[in-house]
C-alpha cells in the first residue's frame, strides 16, 4: 500500500464531489437545518437556567442523525458506481492495489462525512457556550461523531463493493443504519421480554384495619423481562454510544443534568439483573435498597465501548468482504457486474 496512491484515489473521489453543485446545496441545507434547530432548541429550553445543556444534547443528536442519514448516499455507490461507469478498471490497471483503492475510497467517504461535522462545529460551540457545557463534553461528542462517520463510511463502501447495483448498495447501507438506530431498540425490547425469569417480590401483609403488619413478609413471584441478557443490542445504537461516552454530571438530587446522562442511566440500569423487590409499607416510601444513579453508573460496564466494538465488527466485516470482491485478477464477480 502506498500513501501517495491512496491519497491520489481519495482526491480523485473528492475532486469529483467538489465540482458538483449538488454537494454545496446539500451542505447549505444541512447548515440551514442546524441553524433552525439550534435557535428553536435554545428558545425551547430557555425556561431553565441550564438551557444550553438541553439544547446542546438536541443539537448533537441531530448532527448524528443527519450524518447517519446522509453518509450512505455519499459512500454507498463508491465502488459499484465506478464499476458501472467503467472507471474502476481504470484504477485497477494501474499500480494501485486493491488495498490502495479500498482505503482511498474509505478515506474520501470519511473526509466527506467530516465536512458535515465541520459545518456543525460552530453550532455545537455556540450551544456549548450558551449552556455552559464542559469543553470535555464537546470533545467527546466530536470524537464519537467522528467515529460514527468512519463506521457509516465503511458500511457504505463495504456494500458498494458487495452488491452490483448502486441503488441496492445504498439501500442496504440505509438498512444497516436503520438496524443500528431503530432495530437495536426493537430487538432490545422484544428479546428482553422473551427471556423472562421469576423474581421474588416481598410485601407486608395487611391486617383487617388496613394497616401493614410490620413483623412479617408475604412473598410471591412475578415474571420479569431479562434486559440484562440483551443490553448489548441497545449498546450498539449510535445514539446510545454517544450518550454513554459523554461524561455525565449529576445534579444536587443525584440525577443526571442532561439528556445524554438520562439515556446513559437507563441503558446502564438495563445491565442490572432484576433483584428481589421489597415493597415495605412500614418504611413509608424509602427505598434504600435501590441503588442510586451514581452507584448504577459506577457499577456497570461502560456500554459505548461494547457498542462501538459491535459497530466496528459489522462495518469491518462488510468492508473486508468488499475488499475480497474487488481483488484482481477477479475470480468470481458479483452477478451482473462488468469489469470494463
Amino acid at each position, binding site marked *: 500500500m502506498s500513501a501517495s*496512491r491512496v491519497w*491520489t484515489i481519495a482526491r480523485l473521489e473528492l475532486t469529483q464531489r467538489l*465540482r458538483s453543485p449538488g454537494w454545496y446545496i446539500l451542505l447549505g441545507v444541512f447548515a440551514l437545518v442546524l441553524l433552525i434547530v439550534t435557535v428553536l432548541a435554545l428558545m425551547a429550553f430557555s425556561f431553565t437556567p441550564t438551557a444550553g445543556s438541553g439544547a446542546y444534547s438536541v443539537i448533537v443528536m441531530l448532527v448524528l442523525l443527519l450524518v447517519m442519514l446522509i453518509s450512505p448516499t455519499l459512500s454507498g455507490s463508491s465502488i459499484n458506481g465506478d464499476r458501472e461507469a467503467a*472507471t474502476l478498471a*481504470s484504477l485497477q*490497471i494501474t499500480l494501485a*492495489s486493491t488495498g490502495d483503492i479500498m482505503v482511498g475510497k474509505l478515506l474520501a467517504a470519511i473526509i466527506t462525512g467530516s465536512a458535515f461535522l465541520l459545518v456543525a462545529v460552530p453550532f455545537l460551540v455556540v450551544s456549548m457556550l450558551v449552556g455552559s457545557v464542559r469543553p470535555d463534553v464537546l470533545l467527546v461528542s466530536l470524537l464519537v461523531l467522528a467515529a460514527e462517520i468512519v463506521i457509516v463510511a465503511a458500511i457504505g463502501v463495504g456494500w458498494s463493493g458487495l452488491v452490483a447495483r448502486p441503488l441496492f448498495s445504498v439501500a442496504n447501507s440505509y438498512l444497516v443504519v436503520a438496524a443500528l438506530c431503530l432495530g437495536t431498540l426493537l430487538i432490545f425490547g422484544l428479546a428482553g421480554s422473551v427471556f423472562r425469569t421469576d423474581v421474588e417480590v416481598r410485601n407486608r401483609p395487611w391486617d383487617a384495619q388496613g394497616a401493614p403488619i410490620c413483623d412479617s413478609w408475604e412473598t410471591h413471584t412475578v415474571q420479569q423481562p431479562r434486559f440484562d441478557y440483551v443490553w448489548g443490542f441497545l449498546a450498539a445504537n449510535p445514539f446510545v454510544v454517544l450518550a454513554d461516552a459523554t461524561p455525565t454530571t449529576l445534579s444536587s438530587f443525584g440525577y443526571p443534568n442532561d439528556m445524554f446522562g438520562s439515556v446513559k442511566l437507563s441503558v446502564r440500569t438495563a445491565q442490572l439483573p432484576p433483584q428481589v423487590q421489597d415493597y415495605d409499607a412500614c418504611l413509608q416510601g424509602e427505598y434504600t435498597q435501590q441503588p442510586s444513579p451514581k452507584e448504577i453508573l459506577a457499577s456497570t460496564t461502560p456500554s459505548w465501548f461494547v457498542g462501538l466494538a459491535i459497530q466496528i465488527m459489522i462495518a469491518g466485516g462488510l468492508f473486508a468482504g468488499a475488499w475480497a470482491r474487488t481483488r*484482481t485478477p477477479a475470480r468470481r464477480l458479483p452477478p451482473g457486474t462488468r469489469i*470494463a
Partner: protein
Amino acid sequence: MDALSEGGIHVADLSRSFGAVQAVRGASFAAAPGRVTGLVGPNGAGKTTLLLMLASLLAPDRGSIRIGGVDPVTDPSGARRVLGWMPDALGAWPALTVHESVVTTARLHDFDRGRAATRAEELLELVGLRDLAAIPAKVLSRGQKQKLGLARALVHDPQVLLLDEPASGLDPEARVQLRVLLRRLAEQGRTVLISSHVLSELEEVVDDTVFLVAGTVVDAPAVQARAWRIRILSAGPVDEDGTASPPPAGLDPRRSVAAALGVAPESLGIDRGDVLAVFTDERDAAAGLARLIGQGVAVSAFAPAQSELEQAFLSLGDAPHDGGSIR
C-alpha cells in the same frame, strides 16, 4: 530461456467461463515484440474476455499467460508495470479535465507530481488532444475519448500494449495517425495486440493475425477464390480531366472484360459500374489482368473486392456476415 520468459505475449491453453457460458476455451497464441498482432473474431468470440485476462483484471480458470515474461495471475502489479491496456469504452472520470485524467493515471503509476504533469503534456501532444487539455473529459466525443484512453494506456511507457477496438469512433485522419503511431510503437520493440472489427483498417497495420472463434484460436482460413473489382474506362470519349466516368447506360462493361478473359459475360458480377470477376488466387488474378491489358481494355482499377482479412473473417466457421461492429 524458454519461450515463456521472453518478452511479448504468450498464452497457453487459456480458459474462462462465466457460469454456464464458456467465454474462452483453450486459447493458445503468441504475440511477438516488435510486431502488431491483430485479434479478430466475431462478436461474442471472447476477445474482450481474453484481453481482460491479459490485462490482469480477470483470472483464468485454466491455462497460463505471460506478459513480457510476467504472469499476471500471480504477479498482477508486475504485469501492470509492463502492460498498457485500453478498453473498448473508456470510463472517463466525469469531473476531471483531460489533463487531470492523464495526470491521475500517471500518479497511480507512482510518477511524482512534476513528472506526471510533464508526461501528461507529452502524451496529449502525441495523441492530438493538447488543445482540449483543459476541458472536462465527459464532454469529449467518442473518438476523443479513445485518444484519451490511448494516452492513459501509454502513461508508463509500457512494453506490451493491449488495445480493444482503439479505432472505433475515430475520424479518418485520426485513424491514419493511430496507424502511424502503432507502427512506430512496434518499431520501438513493443508488443502490440489490437482487436478490431474494422478489418480493412486492421489489415493495414497488423503483421500477424490471431483468429478467435467461440473462445478458441483457429488457424487462418486458407485463401480461397475471391472476387476482384475491375473498373473499365467507358468506351466513349474519356473526360478531359481523365476521370473514369461510369459507362453510359446500355453499354455493359462486362462484355469487354468477358471477351478479354474468355468467359461468358453472365459469369461476371457487376457492382456500382465495376465488374466483379472471381480468380482462384493471386497468380490467376495477375494473369487475368495481363490478358485484359493485352486486349486493350482500359483498366483503371484492379483490386480485391474484399480485404484479405475480411475474406478470412467471413470464412471463419459460423461468422456473422456483417463484418462490421454494431453497438
